[in-house]
């Protein structure tokens, strides 16, 4: 549905996007993860038509995005700014913003009512937006981008500065939108958001995609291993000896002490084999915990810095 080819954009000497390429399929929810200054907002701004003077191309629904203005009817964009009229109420805001797209007036009213229901604002739709909380404003900001039923939804940091409840609500909305067939790209620097929401994640830094895939694929891509913590009744030396021939076969002994040991495994498929070796040597196992490596570790490994830097 969306194909971005080698987008490059500079601000003076600073390269904001460096031959950035990406593809998005219908119904796919892509989380674009990166620290501040990674180029996320620049990418969204170019796709939104707000930025010029770049090289590369973007194809959307088989057409050049920048040569066919009517394609904007098929895109919904949710900017970081709370960009709407605080003097108006939520319903009037939706009618105003929806009126800029080619949506028939009668459908617009119906659609506005549906969207207000979706973002849980229908009960306060006639209240001036200036009285809304930050979370409610964020939800309205998101609703405006969805009003004209776009095929592609771009969200730039949609959960910045809001409480947990509002964040959950927006992420849930994004999942529903994706499930309904809309392609979604949303930028964030919150790891948990992409882990829970996205069908695919792209890690971005200094204007480039460093890696992309599902959460599992990403972690495998960078060679991250699951951590297995074993508690039981065994001596450290016996434990090490039992697993010595598995070393290098996707199992790495990280630490071993009497009755407690930690292993790194490339795949949890290795765990039955490990247990088998321990049982054969009569080493009792009372507890086993698997800790999946998280995105933070992946990001660290890819960029050499923390996402919060």
């Amino acid at each position: 549905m969306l194909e971005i080819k080698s987008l490059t954009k500079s601000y003076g000497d600073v390269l904001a996007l460096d031959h950035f390429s990406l593809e998005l399929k219908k119904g796919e929810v892509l989380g674009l993860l990166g620290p501040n200054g990674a180029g996320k907002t620049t990418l969204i701004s170019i796709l939104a038509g707000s930025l010029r003077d770049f090289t590369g191309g973007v194809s959307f629904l088989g057409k050049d995005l920048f040569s066919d203005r009517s394609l904007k009817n098929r895109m919904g964009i949710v900017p970081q700014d709370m960009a709407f009229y605080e003097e108006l109420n939520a319903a009037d805001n939706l009618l105003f913003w929806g009126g800029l797209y080619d949506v028939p007036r009668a459908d617009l009213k119906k659609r506005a009512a549906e969207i207000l229901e979706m973002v849980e604002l229908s009960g306060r739709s006639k209240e001036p937006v200036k009285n809304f909380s930050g979370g409610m404003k964020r939800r309205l900001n998101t609703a405006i981008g969805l009003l004209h039923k776009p095929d592609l939804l771009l969200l730039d940091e949609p959960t910045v500065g809001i409480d947990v409840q509002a964040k959950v609500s927006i992420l849930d909305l994004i999942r529903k939108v994706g499930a309904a067939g809309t392609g979604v790209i949303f930028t964030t620097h919150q790891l948990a958001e992409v882990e829970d929401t996205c069908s695919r994640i792209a890690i971005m830094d200094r204007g480039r995609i460093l890696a992309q895939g599902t959460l599992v694929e990403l972690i495998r891509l960078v060679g991250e291993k699951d951590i297995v913590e074993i508690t039981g009744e065994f001596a450290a030396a016996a434990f090490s000896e039992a697993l010595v021939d598995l070393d290098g076969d996707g199992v790495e002994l990280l630490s071993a002490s009497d009755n407690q040991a930690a292993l790194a495994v490339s795949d949890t498929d290795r765990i039955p084999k490990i247990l088998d070796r321990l049982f054969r040597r009569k080493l009792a196992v009372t507890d086993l915990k698997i800790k999946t490596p998280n995105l933070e570790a992946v990001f660290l490994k890819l960029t050499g810095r923390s996402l919060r830097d």
Partner: protein
Amino acid sequence: MTMKTLKRILHIAGNDLRIMVSDKVYFFWSLAFPVLFIVLFGLLYKGGGNGPAVAELTVVNRDQGRWGAYFLEKVKSPGVEIKAVDEEPEAYNRLLVLPADFSAKIEARAAQSLALKKREDASTEAAARVEARLFQAIARVISELVLYGEGDLLKFWDGHPEFRELVRVKTRFPENTVTVVPGGFDHSIPGATVQFIMMMVMIYGGVTVMEDRKKGVMGRMLFSPLSTGGLFQAKLLGRWAMGMIQALILFVVGKVFFKLDLGNVRLSLLVIAVFALAMAALSVFIGSLVGKEDLIIGLAVLLANVFAALGGCWWPIEVVPAGVRQAGMISPAYWAMDALHKLRFFQGDFAAILPHLGVLLGLSAVLSGLAARYFKIRD
């Protein structure tokens, strides 16, 4: 421009207008406050300047002969309308009574005096116009009597039409001499309208352009199929409509409560429309360049007041020295006010205000060009 583009432009302009007029503070400053100015300056400059275009003269003709009617025919003119009544009325603006022996005394070559009465608060300018016309008529009748003596004057005219206007009064003043001083509400209402269009369009129009830019609202509009050019036109149209609505309301208020007479309503509205366009462009320009609300308000108040004073919104520009009048030409308000005065007080037509419309249109074009060149959508 496609229909869809036009619809989007009207949609944005309409929304801007709706937000502006729903603001109670805007209502006060745009409509209530100007009415104070209208009353203040209307009363202040009421003195000789509020004369009607046609002066009405109520006449009681008690004359028993033929000369009374003959004399009144001489009095009639485009600027003096005779209202004949049988009895002396209680209410009148100007009153002339021809006595029963008016003709008899003329034929007897006997002296007589006529009394022209003026209601205390009726226009002095109109009374002076009637008085001049009376002198003119008296001079004509006397001349005719001297020339033709006892003959039948009416029959004589049939054969000698060239002698019909024996006495003509042609006023000759140096060029640019002010013969009529506009004043009253017919001056103060257009004055306040022009002043507050300048001030409020600049303030509200400028501040909202600045706020929409800072909040990312204008940027978001361009996520739709609307072009930057379309957005600029929408912003310009919204601010122009704001000025026009303000003018229409003030004119209606003026008509209902102050008996406003614009002279030529359509041409007056045309002048206001072109003036409002220039101010709309100026507001978009200021809103794009300035990033602080206080600064926009300060600038707008300063410019609007200086332009209003120089342009003749407060006092009639006709009463100021010629040099100051010339300096006033730098003010857009001058061209609007002078055109409105021409239409109302100097029997001006479209040709008379064409130079004014040209200047205001030129100014609109320049300011629109500047506003478009520096139109800023995002910070």
